[in-house]
């Protein structure tokens, strides 16, 4: 009887919830709504939450075993160039703003963008960062093997183009935290090789430095780059769309 009195009460011949119980139901409802909202918006909140945490220089490097891999576009005859590389390790993520600032304290970036990939830096600054940590910029071949594995696939995840666009419909570079795109993962587990910013490499072509693997822009539409795509950039220039990662 006592427990019923806490849960229910009689009034005008009607059985209703006691005031204590009503308050509990309302509180539980509010908690459920809050939880549902949090779960719905978690993908959008998580990068913002991650931005608030201190960022040490990531030690996450992935080992790429020695051996051959299929490099470049497949010829119409079906031939595919085979390149053999020694074992090396490569950063799992692009170098972030906060990491870059640890090595170059004068570097300034917008508040709250700690984990965004660093960009607007010249080739020699990227190289300088790597050297300060006992690393170096990847060669174009090392970059490509880390992006596509050994089987000559077109995209890091396989042969088919990802239907989801890699970038919001916006005319300029919109950066997100490194590793934001959960589908842009290579066979070795290296992230952001088909979208996000382009990345400096150690190699040259046409008197310029080769950069690999970022988002392609067409009008207000965007595409992932293929693992074979490259751009050539003057080493003395710096762009909002161009960052880097290191190898050792």
């Amino acid at each position, binding site marked *: 009887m006592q427990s019923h009195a806490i849960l229910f009460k009689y009034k005008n011949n009607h059985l209703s919830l006691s005031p204590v119980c009503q308050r509990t139901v309302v509180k539980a409802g509010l908690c459920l709504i809050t939880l549902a909202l949090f779960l719905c918006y978690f993908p959008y909140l998580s990068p913002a939450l991650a931005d608030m945490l201190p960022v040490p220089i990531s030690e996450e490097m992935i080992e790429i075993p020695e051996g051959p891999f299929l490099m470049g576009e497949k010829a119409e005859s079906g031939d595919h160039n085979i390149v053999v590389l020694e074992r090396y390790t490569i950063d799992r993520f692009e170098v972030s703003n906060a990491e870059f600032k640890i090595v170059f304290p004068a570097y300034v970036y917008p508040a709250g963008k700690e984990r965004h990939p660093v960009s607007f830096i010249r080739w020699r600054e990227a190289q300088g960062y790597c050297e300060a940590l006992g690393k170096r910029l990847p060669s174009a071949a090392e970059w490509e093997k880390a992006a596509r594995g050994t089987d000559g696939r077109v995209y890091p995840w396989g042969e088919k183009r990802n239907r989801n666009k890699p970038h919001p419909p916006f*005319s300029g*570079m919109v950066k997100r935290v490194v590793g934001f795109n959960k589908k842009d993962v290579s066979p070795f587990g290296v992230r952001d090789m088909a979208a996000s910013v382009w990345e400096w490499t150690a190699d040259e072509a046409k008197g310029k430095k080769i950069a690999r693997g970022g988002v*392609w*822009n*067409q009008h*207000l539409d965007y595409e992932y780059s293929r693992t074979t795509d490259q751009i050539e950039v003057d080493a003395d220039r710096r762009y909002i769309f161009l960052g880097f990662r290191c190898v050792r």
Partner: protein
Amino acid sequence: MGRRSFIRRIIIALAALGVSWFRPTKALAGFNFWRGSEYVGKTREGKYKHFYIQYYKSFKRIEGESWRLKVSGACENPQNFSLEVLKKLPRQTQVSRIKCVECWSAKAEWEGFRLAALDAIVRPLPDAVGVLFRCADTYIEYLPLDDLHHTRSLLVHSMNAAPLSDEHGFPLRMIIPYKYGYKSPKAILEMEYLSQAERGTWNRIGPYSVDGTILPGYDHPLDREKKRRKISGGEIFD
């Protein structure tokens, strides 16, 4: 409220609307430099199929003799400049391509002066970080001083060895070849030095980035029959 009173109020409201419609552009520079009744605006017809013309809104053509460039804001010596005076500033010439965010591009030889020449006269304050451009088509664009002082940034009054046409931005326009065309304001009426960054028209109303750097992607040059080509981002030099 009586019927007459109601009608009177409607008339007053419409008159106020009319005044507000005409006021901004004329008050902007303090000069009446509009001429004729013909308007200049967006076109891709005739000879312009080789160099598309983009304007935010149509506007009456500008009379060069009475036009003045108003330079204001965070500078020690704000003043107005006639086109004749601006043409006396040290001249620079460059061939560069305008790349529109709508994919097409077109190339020309541009002649004008660097912002540094204007800086020497108006003397921007130490806290100035950029310039807000107000244009005849009511378009507004902001550019940081770092970009305006870039070796390829030019304030232009001549194109292909002739004065700028109304369609290409007479009497004065900006050329920043490593950014999309919307960052190169045309038919400039006023340049205001600012001590805080501002947003331009397209950044406010459309999906256009504040930065506007040309990204790696595709180009459809009008002088090459729009044949698609890949570009590496930044200025397109050929």
